[in-house]
């Protein structure tokens, strides 16, 4: 057996199978590429497939299961066989269809799923065991012993799995997204699509014409057809020019509309730079379009069906229409001596085109009986032997076709030598976009095709996609569809003048396979799904085992689940199943075609937001300053916050944080707390509103004072907390946790707009308006006196704990001052307009220096709140109640508020619920770990003894001990008890005493200082 490649060893520059007249290539220029390391040449406009065929290369890949040698079946995106790894290194693209990979100078491709080489593939041996490896064989074995699955069988299977290899490194290219709006989206630029775009475009409608190919024209480029006496592809080019001249028409080539989504939204992928060796600087490789269209004309054409017969996967067996594409568009003869096998008149055209190109046609085999169709005439015109009522029963050759066995109507078999078999089972309308919303197509017996029945709103189908197969009718159908679509958008559309097309016949008699005695155990390998190696036998076996629904067939045999998603196999499979189960095709059903219509790179669906730009980063007003201080940042939601501020000589973060805590406890520190949500609330009913959203009372809060508030969800569990200050009679500013800032805003709007529209109140976020800086520590007041303008009295009497008011700072800058303390020290939060936050930090450093001031980060903030027993995120986790957090008494009984009723349910008021406690290890050096579970001291480490968990933990430099907050069953009643902190993940048990959650200054004297 000879490798086809070796029979036509290429000389650089020579393309032995190139013929004259390719309308889509620039034959005047030659470019180079490599396949499996070997140098070849081609022309701009070639695909990798056409260029390989030009060199006589037939063998392009290996199949998934049996590693059968495979060639090039098609000339389009439906290709199941010729899949390659395109490019190398981080740009390696597995499973790229050679039939749509545009050739560029320097292209490098490699075959895949073979070892050691494409011509000799060791796993080709699988083919010998195919009778064991039939559909679903793996469900029936590999079960003993149980442990061997992971150890032996699965690794074996996984080694054989997959086709190409993903790149080993991050994709270096950029991707982009965009949204486009139009009145009429036209999908496909064959005769129907061009006519539709012209009709709609000339009405003034906004039209987007998407063509997944690099050139407009569709089959007009693939056929030797005349329109108005000119080659049809010329008309396509003129139509394109005419469209280009219309200001509201946008032509998008290399753009595949891959999905129909709700509300007239379509997903489309534009291949911006795939036809170049790599994108230019700043250029995205691909662009994802969300196209919002009022109307959509699907003119996506049709896909030719192979015929199922033994050996139909041998390299050199091609779709008849693809052969014409290679001849007419690319100027490539895919063989030197061809047999044409068809069941329809369209397939016969291949014989004509081959003959015209000088390729010997050894025979035309037409499945239809003598006298049906135009076979005899065509055969005569080409001077070719004609076999009516015939069938191809076998293919000779392993690596490439060397001949075929043909059975005539009388049952006589003959062998015909050839290197190309062009087959046509008819055309299946490309209706994928019509089924994405769950509308099932119906089978049309006359056309032997599934056609859309119901359509998504705003969608029409035209041309071959609607089963309108002749050029003249497709033009007319497209023009009508385009005009109607424009009219539906309110434009006065007329049908454009259409060119005159020659008469043509598309007559067809159904033919899906050439197998005798359905079903038969003797069938040789006749492939239905090429890539996944599903044979007619597999379909029969599945049916025998009861997998007779199309869904079951698909899942049991993996039919239609390969990279081509059954484009060339689904209809044949349904027809075969129908025959085996003796049902009409229409009643056998069809599976829905899932989006995308063509595989879409994950990078393109992801777009530009990658790596560090995965999500936007919100920066606080002091961010730059903190950076200049060498702060270490941490993400808090989208915010970046300073976690701590290391100083030279500090050994680790813990040392830094301890120093920051001590600074606050002993002198003064400051911390940017801008990220807390801040909501400005104004209106006559503001107080009443707060009464209803918070559990506690608000009406008596005086102007100039702040109060801590707790919100529940309506189901009675704690939701969020924070302080709200009354700035005026009807003016409040609420703070929320950083995490819930957006959620609380939505919640307030919900309550206001939906629950209590009668309340007169307005909200607006002021989170970004103010740089809010906590200044905390015994020296806080002294430092602030240097910042707050002297007319404002900061004395304890004039501005006590929980006071709030407007001040000016640094000589007249408007500011707000709140005497709040999260740390438990004498503390303030000073808010200045955000633009001054950076300068305020610098000023605080300057004026605070004599007092020993230092900035502190979120870590020290967290340590101090644990020392003070303030609940935060780990305690307010959506599973806890006010009671659990030690705030049960805050729940007012004198008013309705969100969550009040559900909070009274028995399980929420059970005293045995885990409740907030402090935990102090008996040995201060024993680390307390958040997430450890609380068990009675000495109890066995089982779930039955589990009584709670450690929610937050830290080393307290103030106490010189690790400490924790936890939620412990019956907690408040157990102060003094010793419990065991179990952390089986780390293998540790720490004994700790249950204490009050307030570790530092339990009387709260310092905040009043």
């Amino acid at each position, binding site marked *: 057996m000879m490798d086809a490649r070796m029979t036509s060893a290429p000389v650089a520059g020579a393309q032995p199978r190139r013929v004259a007249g390719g309308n889509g290539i620039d034959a005047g220029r030659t470019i180079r590429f490599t396949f499996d390391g070997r140098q070849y040449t081609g022309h701009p406009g070639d695909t990798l497939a056409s260029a390989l065929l030009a060199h006589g290369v037939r063998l392009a890949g290996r199949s998934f299961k049996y590693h059968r040698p495979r060639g090039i079946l098609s000339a389009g995106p439906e290709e199941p066989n010729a899949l390659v790894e395109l490019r190398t290194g981080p740009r390696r693209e597995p499973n790229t269809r050679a039939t749509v990979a545009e050739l560029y100078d320097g292209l490098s491709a490699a075959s895949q799923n073979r070892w050691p080489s494409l011509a000799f593939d060791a796993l080709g041996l699988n083919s010998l065991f195919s009778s064991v490896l039939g559909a679903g064989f793996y469900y029936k074995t590999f079960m003993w012993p149980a442990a061997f699955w992971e150890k032996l069988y699965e690794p074996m299977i996984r080694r054989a799995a997959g086709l190409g290899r993903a790149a080993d490194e991050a994709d270096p290219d950029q991707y982009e997204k965009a949204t486009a709006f139009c009145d009429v989206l036209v999908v496909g630029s064959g005769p129907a699509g061009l006519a539709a775009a012209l009709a709609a475009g000339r009405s003034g409608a906004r039209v987007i014409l998407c063509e997944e190919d690099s050139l407009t024209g569709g089959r007009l480029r693939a056929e030797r057809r005349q329109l108005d006496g000119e080659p049809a592809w010329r008309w396509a080019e003129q139509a394109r020019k005419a469209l280009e001249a219309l200001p509201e028409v946008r032509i998008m080539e290399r753009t595949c509309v891959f999905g129909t989504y709700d509300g007239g939204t379509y997903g489309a992928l534009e291949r911006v730079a795939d036809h170049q060796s790599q994108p230019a600087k700043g250029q995205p490789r691909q662009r994802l379009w969300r196209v919002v269209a009022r109307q959509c004309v699907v003119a996506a054409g049709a896909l030719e069906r192979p015929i199922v017969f033994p050996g139909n996967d041998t390299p050199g067996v091609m779709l008849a229409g693809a052969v014409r594409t290679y001849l007419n568009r690319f100027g490539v003869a895919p063989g030197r001596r061809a047999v044409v096998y068809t069941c329809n008149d369209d397939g016969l055209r291949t014989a004509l085109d081959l003959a015209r190109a000088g390729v010997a046609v050894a025979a035309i085999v037409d499945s239809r009986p003598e006298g049906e169709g135009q076979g005899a005439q065509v055969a005569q015109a080409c001077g070719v032997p004609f076999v009516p009522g015939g069938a191809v029963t076998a293919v000779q050759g392993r690596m490439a076709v060397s001949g075929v066995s043909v059975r005539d109507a009388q049952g006589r078999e003959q062998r015909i030598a050839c290197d190309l078999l062009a087959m046509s089972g008819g055309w299946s309308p490309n209706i994928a976009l019509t089924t994405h919303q769950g509308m099932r197509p119906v089978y049309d017996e006359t056309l032997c095709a599934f056609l859309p029945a119901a359509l998504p*709103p705003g969608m029409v189908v035209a041309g071959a996609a609607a089963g309108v197969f002749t050029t003249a009718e497709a033009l007319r159908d497209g023009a009508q569809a385009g005009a109607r679509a424009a009219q539906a958008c309110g434009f006065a559309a007329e049908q454009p003048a259409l060119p005159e097309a020659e008469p043509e016949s598309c007559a067809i008699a159904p033919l899906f396979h050439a197998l005798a005695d359905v079903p038969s155990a003797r069938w040789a390998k006749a492939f239905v799904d090429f890539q996944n190696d599903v044979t007619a036998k597999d379909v029969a076996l599945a049916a025998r085992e009861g997998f007779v629904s199309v869904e079951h067939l698909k899942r049991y045999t993996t039919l239609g689940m390969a990279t081509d998603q059954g484009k060339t196999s689904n209809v044949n499979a349904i027809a075969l199943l129908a025959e085996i189960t003796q049902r009409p095709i229409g009643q056998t059903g069809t599976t829905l075609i899932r989006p995308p219509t063509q595989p879409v790179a994950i990078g393109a669906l992801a777009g530009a937001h990658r790596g560090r730009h995965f999500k936007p980063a919100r920066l606080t007003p002091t961010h730059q300053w903190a950076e200049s201080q060498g702060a270490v940042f941490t993400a808090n939601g989208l915010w970046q916050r300073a976690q701590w501020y290391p100083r030279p000589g500090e050994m680790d973060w813990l040392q830094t944080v301890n120093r920051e805590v001590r600074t606050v406890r002993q002198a003064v520190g400051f911390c940017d707390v801008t990220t807390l949500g801040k909501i400005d609330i104004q209106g006559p009913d503001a107080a009443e509103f707060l009464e209803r959203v918070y559990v506690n009372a608000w009406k008596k809060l005086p102007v100039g004072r702040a109060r801590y508030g707790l919100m529940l969800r309506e189901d009675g569990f704690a939701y969020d907390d924070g302080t709200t200050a009354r700035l005026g009679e009807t003016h409040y500013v609420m703070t929320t946790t950083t995490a819930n800032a957006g959620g609380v805003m939505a919640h307030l709007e919900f309550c206001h707009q939906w629950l209590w*529209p*009668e309340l007169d109140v307005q909200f607006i976020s002021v989170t970004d308006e103010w740089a809010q800086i906590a200044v905390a520590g015994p020296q806080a007041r002294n430092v602030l006196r240097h910042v707050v303008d002297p007319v404002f009295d900061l004395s304890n009497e004039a501005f006590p704990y929980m006071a709030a008011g407007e001040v000016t700072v640094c000589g007249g800058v408007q500011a707000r001052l709140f005497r709040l303390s999260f740390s438990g020290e004498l503390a303030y939060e000073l808010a200045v307009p955000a633009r001054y936050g950076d300068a305020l930090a610098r000023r605080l450093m300057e004026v605070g220096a004599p007092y020993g001031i230092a900035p502190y980060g979120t870590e020290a903030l967290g340590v101090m709140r644990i020392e003070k027993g303030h609940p935060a995120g780990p305690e307010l986790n959506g599973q806890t109640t006010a009671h659990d957090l030690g705030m049960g008494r805050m729940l007012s009984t004198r008013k309705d508020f969100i969550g009040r009723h559900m909070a009274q349910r028995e399980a929420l008021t059970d005293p045995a619920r885990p409740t907030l406690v402090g935990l102090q290890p008996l040995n201060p050096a024993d680390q307390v770990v958040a997430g450890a579970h609380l068990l009675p001291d000495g109890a066995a480490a089982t779930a039955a003894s589990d009584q709670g968990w450690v929610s937050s933990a830290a080393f307290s430099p103030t106490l010189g001990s690790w400490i924790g907050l936890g939620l412990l069953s019956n907690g408040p009643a157990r102060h003094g008890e010793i419990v065991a902190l179990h952390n089986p993940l780390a293998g540790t048990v720490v004994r700790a005493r249950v204490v009050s959650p307030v570790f530092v200054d339990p009387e709260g004297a310092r905040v009043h200082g």
Partner: protein
Amino acid sequence: MRLTCPFCGSRGVEEFTYRGDATVRRPAGDAGAAAWVDYVYLRDNPAGPHQELWYHGAGCRSWLVVTRDTRTHLISDVRAARAVAQAEREEGAV
């Protein structure tokens, strides 16, 4: 999917967040426990037209009452929740 905000116009669903059934009503303060369980937890969850609450959080911050078919995702009506709630109050008051 696109929602037509009565204030902002037709927008992609990514600008909105969903809250659920808009036919349930918060019980009066003195309603019994069963009424609260109904309100907070029980849903008709129909396969067909469904009145539901959406929030145009990335837009004008309006809560909306949307009527949408849960089988087809087709939207037949969008109203401002506040207007709906106010109209109900007025009806109730009559």
